[in-house]
Every structure is written in C-alpha cells, then in structure tokens.
C-alpha cells in the first residue's frame, strides 16, 4: 500500500477559502471564498487552469454544493443569500437574496435532487425547489445551526447545532422526530458557547451517522480536540470515535466518505496547526495523517484518484503590525494529493514537517511518513 503523495503544484488563490468541491463531472473545482466570490478551475489538464469566478455574493461564500445533474451549482453566503448557477455557462438560474437572516452556514441536496436544504445562524432550516429556487418549506429550531445531511432514503434530514445536538427532521411531517445530544461537541466557557456539530455525514449503508467538529477545551483562543463521532442511526447510540491527541488542532473542518469505507478529513487549530487524515471507524488511530497548516476543506475527485485540500499559508497570525510594511492578508493554498491504493491495512504517522509560505513549496516537507 502506498500513502497519498502530493501531486503537481498547488493553486494559490489570493484569498481564504471556506469550502472546495469538485464538480460531479470531474472537470471543475470550485472554491467558496472569503472575498465573496466562487473561484473555479478547470482540472482536466495536467495543471489546474483558472476559470472566471462567480460573483454576486456578499461577506463570505460559506458553502457550496454541486447537483448530480452535472449542470447546477448551489452557493450560499454569510449575508443569507442562496444562488443556483449553471456552472457550465456561468449563468444564474435563480437567486434568493435573503434566504436566511444572516449567516447561511450549510447546504444539503436531497437524494432525489429536487430540493436544496439550507440552515443558518437564524435557527431556521429551509427547503428550496432546486429548479426554481422557490421556498418549499421551513422549520425553526431556534438555535445556531451549523451542519446538515439528508438521510440517503430521503425521508429525513439531520441538522447539527451549536450545543452539540443533532436533530432528525421527519420531512413528511416537518417535525423534529428525535434529538441526539453529543455533548462533547459543546462547552460553555465563561459566557461563550464554544464548538458545535460542524459536519454530518451518513455512511454508504445509511446505518451510521458521523458527526464531526471538536471537543472544545476553552473559548477565546479555542483550544479544542478535533473529534469524529459515529452514531448508530437506528438506536441513536454512540459508536466509534476518534479524538485528536492535542488541543492545538482545533476542529474537523471538513470530512468526506471514501468508497473504501474510511473517512477523509481535515483539521485546523492554532495557527500553523492542522492535518489531513484518513480514519477507518473503529480504528484507534488514523490510517494516515500528515501536518498541513490550518486546513478548512477537502474533497475527493469523482475518479477517486486524488483529493484536494484547502489549507492556509504559514505565519498567518501575529499581534499588531510590522511598522512601515504593507499589511499582509492570508490566503488558502489548495494542494492536490494522489491517492495510493487501498490505505486500509497500513498505517502512517503524521510527519513533523513544517509548511513554508509563498508559492515556492518544499514538497518533501509535507509528505506523510510511513511507520516502520
């Protein structure tokens, strides 16, 4: 078995990135950016080629989701806007400027592809016709909502909130069917509620729900242990879990399910800390793990041969400013990793690498190291 290895050169967009996703046709990579645009690249060639960005959002583009019809892309922002695009020609199909009051945090597409679900800081879950953009329903949960996932059978939607609760919404009745509390995801530190369920994902058989985020240790700096928790869907009982060994690593920011049954995920914590990791539920340790600073999103290409990771430049933090120098901004290099053959059965430690800033990369420093 071979570990994943870096592939080609990184893309270095000039802004920070919230979310990256490959189009289901495998030809494009899209990035939700802090500069209110959706950046895109053609990834059919040997090197990614930048395509025109989509604009029209405000604040941060918080998330995005491709429709499996290989035409539509749905994007949302922190000012509450939800937009449907034809990503092939760049035209807006429909646009809802105030889908939510403020931060629209997550998008989920129904298994049928007919409905786009959204949730936000305003405590609402809303449903939108994926063809017309018309509102198809809503339910208020009354708390800050972070993450969503449709059950693969399409009968229910799960929503994760700031307090570590996961609510199952029965779609036919538009009611909360059950609430699964995972209190490890929440901490009240002084007056700050910290943490939340940041990601939700069903396994291929729809028997297990994976919740991800962090077990917070403090507010402010937000020292936190990245945490993934499996939950038996039928019984609501907690199953396998993985928690990072140190509280510098912050949150699981993004997670996906590999066809081979393991989860790929990225973490970001104190500036400079972060990792790409593969975890097979039930295993005590990740199959693979490597340090990459402050990763905020990861996605597997539809061909399964490589994945992309959006991380952060080095030296991203600092108090005050250097006098007489231009004030710096940070950005999110996007790295590509060739997947090895089935990593199950082999283990890799995370490297003690450091990550260098700028566009000149020392690839050897970011490679995973195989255990003896």
């Amino acid at each position: 078995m071979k570990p994943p290895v870096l592939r080609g050169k990184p893309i270095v967009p000039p802004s920070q990135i919230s979310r990256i996703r490959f189009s289901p046709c495998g030809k494009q990579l899209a990035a939700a950016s802090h500069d209110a645009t959706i950046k895109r690249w053609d990834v059919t060639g040997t090197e990614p080629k930048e395509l025109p960005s989509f604009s029209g959002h405000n604040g941060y583009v918080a998330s995005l989701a491709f429709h499996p019809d290989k035409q539509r892309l749905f994007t949302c922002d922190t000012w509450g806007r939800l937009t449907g695009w034809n990503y092939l020609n760049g035209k807006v199909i429909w646009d809802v400027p105030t889908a939510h009051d403020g931060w629209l945090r997550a998008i989920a597409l129904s298994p049928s592809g007919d409905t786009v679900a959204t949730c936000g800081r305003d405590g609402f879950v809303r449903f939108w016709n994926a063809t017309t953009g018309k509102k198809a329903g809503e339910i208020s949960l009354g708390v800050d909502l972070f993450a969503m996932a449709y059950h693969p059978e399409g009968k229910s939607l799960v929503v994760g909130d700031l307090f570590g609760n996961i609510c199952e919404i029965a779609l036919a009745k538009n009611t909360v069917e059950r609430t699964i509390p995972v209190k490890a995801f929440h901490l009240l530190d002084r007056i700050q509620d910290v943490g939340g369920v940041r990601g939700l994902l069903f396994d291929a058989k729809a028997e297990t729900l994976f919740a991800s985020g962090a077990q917070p240790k403090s507010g402010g700096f937000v020292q936190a242990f990245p945490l993934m928790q499996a939950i038996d869907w039928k019984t609501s009982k907690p199953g396998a879990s993985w928690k990072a060994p140190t509280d510098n690593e912050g949150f699981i920011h993004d997670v996906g399910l590999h066809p081979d049954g393991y989860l790929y995920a990225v973490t970001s914590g104190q500036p400079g800390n972060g990792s790409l990791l593969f975890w097979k539920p039930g295993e005590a340790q990740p199959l693979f793990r490597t340090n990459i600073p402050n990763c905020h999103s990861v996605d597997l290409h539809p061909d399964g041969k490589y994945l992309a990771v959006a991380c952060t430049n080095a030296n991203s933090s600092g108090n005050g400013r250097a006098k007489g120098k231009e004030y710096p901004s940070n950005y999110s290099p996007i790295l590509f990793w060739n997947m090895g053959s089935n990593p199950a059965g082999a283990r890799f430690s995370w490297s003690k690498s450091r990550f260098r800033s700028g566009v000149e990369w020392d690839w050897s420093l970011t490679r995973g190291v195989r255990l003896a």
Partner: protein
Amino acid sequence: MFLGGSGAMALGGLTTPAFAEQLRKERKQVLFVWLDGGMSQLESWDPKPNTPFGGPFRSIATSVPGIHISELLPNCARAMKHLAIVRNISTQDNSHSAGVERIQRGDPKNRGVVYPYFGSAVAKLVGPGDSGLPPYVWVKPMSGGFMYKDAGFLGPKYGALALGDGKPPENLLRPTDVTSDDDRERNELRKLADSRYAANRRPDTTEANSYAFEMAAQLQKRIELFDVSKLPAKDKERYGSHDLGRHLLLARRLLEEGVTFVKVTSYGWDTHGDHFNGAANLHPKFDKPFAAIIEDLAERSMLDNVLVIAIAEFGRTPRINGHLGRDHWPEAWSACMAGRGIKRGVVAGKTNANGTEVAGEPVDIGGLFHTWYEALGIHGDKVRYHNNGQPLPIAHEDMHAVKEVLA
C-alpha cells in the same frame, strides 16, 4: 495629598427631599465596562462589510441616520441615539499583560510612580458621594476581594472593592451567635490594636486596613442590594442570565444607590481562534445588557449623571489567521461611551477603508482619559494630583480630549 476639583457633601440626616434630589442630580458617576481580552472593532463599532478584512457579518443601520454598526449589536443600534463611538483609537501595547495596565492607568508619561486605574482616580477625584457605599466597586466573575493595587500612588485606600460573581464579600454578615454589643466591643478592640499597629508604620497601609473594615460595615447595612430575588423577572430576562448580564444588572442597582464608580468586567474576549463563531455568540451577550442598562439609565434620567464607557485593552487584527481568529490590535480600534458630559448619537474619528489604520489624527488612551475627566467636569489643565509634594497631571499632558464627543 490632594487636588482641586469636586468635593462630595455628606448627606448625614439633615437633608430635605428637594435637597437630596438636587444632590442626586449633581452626582458624578461612572459605569466602566471592561471586555477583557479585546472586543473586535470590526464586529462591533466599526464594521467594514465586504472589504478584505471585513469578516462575514453585515452592518446595520442605527437609530441615528448615517451611523452603522455590526449586525451583532442590534440592541445597541437601537440605543445609538444615546451613544458616542470613537473609532480612531491607536494605543501603544499589543500584549494583555502590559495593555490592561496601560489602558486602565491612562498611560501617562513615566514619572517613576504608578498611576491609579481610572476607577481609583475617580474614587479620589469625585469622592464617595452620598451613598454610604464604597466609591469604587468592581463587579467581576470568579473571586472578589479588596484590590488595593489599582490605586497606585493614591494609596491602597482608593483600591477597588471587588464583588466576585457579583456577590458580597464572604463573611460579611455578623454571625448570628455574636450579639451586636459583642460585635461593637470587638470592633473597638480591633481599632485599638489597629492604632497600636499603625503607630510605627506607613499610614497608607493601615488606613487601607481600617477602610476595608469600614467598607464591610457599610455593606452589612446594604446587604439587600445583592438579593437578586427581588428584581423583576422582566429585568433579568432583558439583561440575560449569563455573568455579564447579571453583573450589569447589579451595576445598575449600585449606580441607583449612588456608588461613584462601578466597573464590570467580562472575561473571554481574546478570540484568537474561531473568532466569528465566538463573536456571533459573545457580542450579543454584550449587546443586550449593555443596551438595556443604557436605556434604563436614560429612562431614569441617570445618563445626565453617569458616564458610561465600554472598552478593552485593544481591538482585534483586521487579518484573519489560520484558526479563523483575530489577534491583538492596538493600531486602530474603537470604544463606546455615553452619558454624563457626552454627546449623544455621534461618531468621532475613522479608520481607512480596510480598517488597517486610523484615517486622520489618532487618539491614544491619554486623550480618552482627558475626555472622560472633562465629561465629569474635571479639567486636566486645572486639577493636579499632589503625591507627597510631587505635582502630577491627572492624564497625559501632551494629549487632549476628543472634543467631538463632549457635550
């Protein structure tokens, strides 16, 4: 040691209701809200939406046309007609350990003495008033006690009485098995011992010791102040059940009872990581009770007497680090004030388009100290401390008040 400036009159038992009302109107009081760690100016008083460092949030209109603040402060937006914002603060220190001291002591020129915190200074310059309560009360989370170091060269007597978690000092009440006569005799004995102890020691230290006992005695008579069960449920809901809400509600009661200076501290604002989720959670917990106390003071006509200040040791960086946090930023940040001597519904100063620098003349903390003293009717060009014969300015003599916010 002392100064010109205002003197407080003791009410004693000789006042008529009209005279008492006149005195109440002439009170000079301060509410000082300290957001320890540093509140982000970009998610509060000086939003820069849709700019490179502006963050994810919107700005919203306020009750004053043309003034916008962060969407995270909707109640303050409603109360803006009472508020004044200073957006061009630029200070000297980006560390907490030094920054807290420098800001709260006013960062004057170094003369080899430790200047008092603003609370101690006001306790000295304004005096205890007619409340019969300590002049400088600090409501804070966690433990309390007598914080003599706040007073600097003024001497321990002007330190802060800290009410840990808003509760009265422990063992305040006379034990039930000690009669009042026994208690009085014990105190006489203590005073005798104190006087012997003081005979060969610095008076400041022994005065502070005696003062602490006097304060305890004063508070014993006013223990009802801390009984939150008597507060209307509606007020508790308006202020919130978290520390900052409860403590601001207690601050309102202390101000109503005439305490000269009330400081309320909230910890945990040092949002180096996950800042925007932190701000989305923290800022509303400031917004709601702060707007509530402003509106309550206005409704009671107390904003004519009470100078209100909300500030921290610095703001937060425009740049957003890899942990999605904002770091320390003394270069260009904001504070909010209201009440006595302060114009209502104004903004002074500005930052550049991206919030990375002050546009125009910056204001350092010395300028804010001059502003606050002027608002209290204490003029820095006329009033001096006299520290064992050493005349000292009450604030940095090279700086001046922010005239745009002075009424």
